[in-house]
């Protein structure tokens, strides 16, 4: 369950990165549709956070330690919203680049989460 969610969130994050990268390439700021995309990715991260905590509460142990696991879950949760707010403050293509970078960072976090949870 959690691993499937990690995969989906990671792929969604990469798609978001590609989409905002495309907007930046065309010299455009982030628009409403991009923010809906960010909301979808953020929602996936929230679901992942909740599922992760429920798994911990059930007594399952992440391979590399509970503290690191929770820290990465929180980081993944905060990643895209933070980049989204920064793109609100920067209404040029650089705002789009920032969100694209946010998507890439989230994808990296998901890979790490997969390792930490232990496949």
């Amino acid at each position, binding site marked *: 369950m959690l691993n499937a969610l990690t995969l989906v969130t990671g792929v969604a994050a990469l798609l978001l990165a590609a989409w905002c990268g495309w907007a930046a390439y065309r010299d455009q700021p982030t628009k409403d549709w991009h923010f809906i995309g960010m909301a979808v990715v953020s929602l996936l991260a929230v679901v992942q956070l909740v599922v992760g905590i429920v798994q911990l509460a059930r007594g399952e142990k992440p391979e590399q330690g509970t503290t690191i696991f929770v*820290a990465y879950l929180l980081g993944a949760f905060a990643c895209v919203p933070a*980049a989204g707010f920064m793109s609100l403050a920067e209404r040029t293509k*650089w705002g789009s680049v920032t969100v694209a970078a946010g998507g890439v960072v989230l994808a990296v976090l998901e890979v790490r989460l997969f390792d930490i949870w232990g496949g």
Partner: protein
Amino acid sequence: MTAVEEKPIRLISGPGMLLVWFYGVMVVGAVSRSAYQISTEFGRAPLAYALSAVAGVVYGFITYTLIRGGETARRAALVCCAAELAGVLIVGTWTLVDRSAFPDATVWSYYGAGYIFIPVLLPLSAMYWLRRAQRTAVKQ
């Protein structure tokens, strides 16, 4: 405050915003990593964990100066970026030459290879951006 009220140089417009994002990510990465490692297993690799903590503090300061803006902050950020670059190069070389000094990795090990080389690319792009910010400010 009496004479010409100058508008401080804005350092987070355009590419500056992207820099703030990456520095923010590195702050969270370095600080949380070192806080966890120092509190749980400091004895295993004290030098490595202490260096990660120092890196986190430097990243935090640069992030703050970028957001604050202005000429003083720009100069402070420039100095810190140079210190950061020196740190990455020294620690990166050190980890290659004497592996035994670092039983565990730091943020700056192997020139930041564990962080997709962001630690070595970031100060270079930041210094380029900060120098350009000054030139545009002079032109205005």
